[in-house]
């Protein structure tokens, strides 16, 4: 049995993680990290919530420091998850919420997987541009993205 931390945001990012988790036919322990207000896919008991990273409601002046503090908070939560649950893998379907846990996971030599969004056909996401530098595996769902992820793997679409 493995412990896998899934990190995802709202809307389509959650839907992609949901489709992944629906196909988990092994007795893995799944931990979820998502945005405050988003309903966890499997269980609220093993879910951690992070405030939305780049909320536009706070305006351009406050959005950067807010992202910085939320990232710091998320880093602490990620460390707590690493100590408490000892995940073997960290998987993220984006968006920005995936960046910090993947980076910390890589530092602690965890298996890290970033799955580029299924809506990307011509340009990679900001999180993808950042995460491809350090994650162990990048999966992309549209063949058109091959040139953006020369070391990534085409995975088919969720």
């Amino acid at each position: 049995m493995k412990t896998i931390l899934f990190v995802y945001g709202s809307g389509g990012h959650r839907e992609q993680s949901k489709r992944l988790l629906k196909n988990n036919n092994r007795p893995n322990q799944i931990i979820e990290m998502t945005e405050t207000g988003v309903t966890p896919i499997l269980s609220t008991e093993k879910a951690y919530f992070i405030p939305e990273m780049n909320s536009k409601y706070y305006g351009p002046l406050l959005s950067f420091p807010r992202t910085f503090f939320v990232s710091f908070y998320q880093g602490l939560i990620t460390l707590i998850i690493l100590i408490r649950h000892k995940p073997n893998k960290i998987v993220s379907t984006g968006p920005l919420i995936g960046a910090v846990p993947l980076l910390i996971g890589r530092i602690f030599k965890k298996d890290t997987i970033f799955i580029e969004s299924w809506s990307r056909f011509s340009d990679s996401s900001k999180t993808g541009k950042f995460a491809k530098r350090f994650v162990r595996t990048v999966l992309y769902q549209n063949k058109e993205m091959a040139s953006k992820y020369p070391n990534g793997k085409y995975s088919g679409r969720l």
Partner: protein
Amino acid sequence: MKIFVTTGTTKFNSLVKEVISLSENTLMKIILQCPSKTINHPRITHFQFTENIDKYYKSADIVITHAGAGTCYRLLESGIKPIVVPNLERSDSHQREIALYIENNKYSSVCWEIEKIEEHINKHADSNFIEYQKDDFFYYDFIFS
């Protein structure tokens, strides 16, 4: 005619405005899902969120949707050909990308100019679209083993 309009979890004010205007000029029955708390209009049934959105997709004659990937793929996988309206009010470009993908592959119709939504509704039933196809995800073992 029964029309279901969905904007997902993000606001799409220009589409909502056009839908309200449409309801005032036609006899179409319109159901609208959008995150606004209230849409006070006598000819529009509105809700913010439902766990069972498929029910609304299936009971509508025409579905009008924002170009959110999750919604578009789900509709196309169900064999429903929606009128896709990309939300160009958003700062990121992924709705444009999905809309182009759907349009270029002739999976359904895309309405780039919101004020032309009625034209799209009128010609939608007579349009020929291609059945949506995809390579299914094949990395489940890699992720879960």
